[in-house]
């Protein structure tokens, strides 16, 4: 019997970068003729993804099989990964520092601390370790992991081969300048800093502007509440929380955006930056974690900007045609490089020893 290559995940949700990567990997493995399933703890799968996932307790252990685990948080999936007898590959997506979640969600903070404490154990029980960025690889090497291979997060331009949702265009019809932020609404994203900057921008630089915050608020509802209170306290107009965007909604938001801004203080890679660049939206992002690798010389990267300075930078990028052109040109080159990637070849090389 031919061996299988399965994946175990701590959660599985539409629009989540790790889940998307798992689905793309599964597609490649199946194309090569392997049986491949995605196993997730029951209750940690979003309804639209249920048909694609199997329950964690359905996983059948065999010394011949290969199991890939996407590691970013402590979970029963990580425990199963450590326990099974098969050949094991850990894909490291970085662990958000628990301090970000303190007070907002003590449960998640605890899981993140556990993940950090167990990182070495998970690395030690793996036959191979991959990381989605050099930044992540360096973290693993710092705790003694050897031969860490970098396999950047997979980006598929095909995801945008859909007709952008016309309802989004209708909803955001007023001709305002749109500042966009995409990603889960989580404390490490520091969206409050973007709201503060937008407050300056909207009140002092461009009254006819709008901040679009696209992403699920379910990760940290207490943090989301704080953001809503902040908007009210600042009395700033046109801050729109758009919640989770459907696969057709997301390209629509990118298409109406004038500038994409990420104020996140912790990212393992940050896929929305690549998505924004692929839709020709000029990008501004904080220089942190895996972001320099995601941008790879494109867009604008900053360190230590006060909110009012960030507002000025957004204004400059939105109004200075020469600067806008330079940034977009750098981003086009970046996307060309991203699309020139041959993920299947990369995966085959990485799996080389296992496939023989």
């Amino acid at each position, binding site marked *: 019997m031919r061996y299988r290559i399965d994946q175990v995940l701590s959660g599985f949700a539409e629009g989540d970068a790790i889940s998307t990567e798992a689905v793309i990997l599964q597609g490649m493995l199946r194309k090569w003729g392997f049986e491949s399933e995605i196993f997730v703890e029951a209750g940690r799968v979003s309804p639209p993804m249920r048909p694609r996932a199997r329950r964690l307790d359905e996983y059948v252990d065999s010394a011949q099989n290969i199991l890939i685990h996407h590691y970013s948080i402590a979970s029963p999936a990580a425990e199963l990964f450590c326990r099974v007898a098969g050949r094991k590959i850990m894909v490291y997506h970085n662990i958000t520092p628990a301090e970000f979640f*303190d*007070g*907002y*969600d*003590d449960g998640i903070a605890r899981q993140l601390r556990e993940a950090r404490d167990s990182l070495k154990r998970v690395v030690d029980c793996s036959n191979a370790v991959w990381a989605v960025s050099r930044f992540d690889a360096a973290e693993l090497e710092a705790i003694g992991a050897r031969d860490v291979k970098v396999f950047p997060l997979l980006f598929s331009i095909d995801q945008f081969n859909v007709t952008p949702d016309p309802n989004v265009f209708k909803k955001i019809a007023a001709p305002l300048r749109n500042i966009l932020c995409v990603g889960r609404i989580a*404390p490490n994203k520091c969206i*409050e800093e973007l709201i*503060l900057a937008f*407050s*300056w921008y909207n*009140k*002092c*630089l461009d*009254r*006819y502007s709008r901040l679009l915050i696209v992403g699920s608020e379910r990760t940290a509802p*207490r943090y989301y*509440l*704080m953001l809503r*209170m*902040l908007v*009210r*306290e*600042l*009395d*700033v107009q046109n801050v729109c929380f758009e919640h989770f965007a459907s696969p057709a909604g997301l390209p629509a938001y990118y298409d109406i955006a004038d500038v994409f801004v990420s104020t996140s203080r912790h990212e393992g890679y940050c896929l929305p930056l690549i998505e924004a660049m692929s839709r020709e939206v000029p990008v501004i992002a904080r*220089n942190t974690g895996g972001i320099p690798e995601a941008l790879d*010389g*494109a*867009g*604008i*990267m*900053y*360190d*230590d*900007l*006060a*909110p*009012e*300075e960030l*507002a*000025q*930078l957004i204004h*400059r990028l939105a109004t200075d045609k020469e*600067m806008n052109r*330079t*940034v977009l*040109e*750098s981003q086009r080159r970046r996307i060309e490089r991203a699309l020139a990637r041959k993920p299947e070849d990369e995966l085959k090389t990485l799996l080389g020893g296992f496939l023989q």
Partner: protein
Amino acid sequence: MRLIVANTDRSADLGQQVSAAAKTMVASVPKDELPGVTGVLSLRSVKTEAEYMDKLTTLLVERSGVAAVDFHVPRKQGVMGAVSAAVKTFLWKVLRYQHDRMAFQQNCVNFQLTASVEFLRAEYERKIKALEQRVAELEKKDR
């Protein structure tokens, strides 16, 4: 501050310009209208969910009011911009008669709700404390 634009370090020129423009902008705004002044961000410093809840309740009670004061009507350039701004300002003044009444009612409802949250929280705390005390006494007896 450090600014990298399309792989080129622009901290010295663009960075300085952005910084200077920001300083001018801040100086042009009256102190009591500074957009960055907020107490809500104190929630960032809490360490546990319980602390968050404490602080949140206080913030809710302090900030439950709806303001119906005048606000700056943005104005586009040109004659149409001036006319549009004048119409909006006039409408605002006319509608205040209705706004103020609605804001008053909304403030009453908000106050009732936030006060209820505060009272409920105090009641739960009292009950939990009493239960904890009882459990401790029972445990003492068992030993």
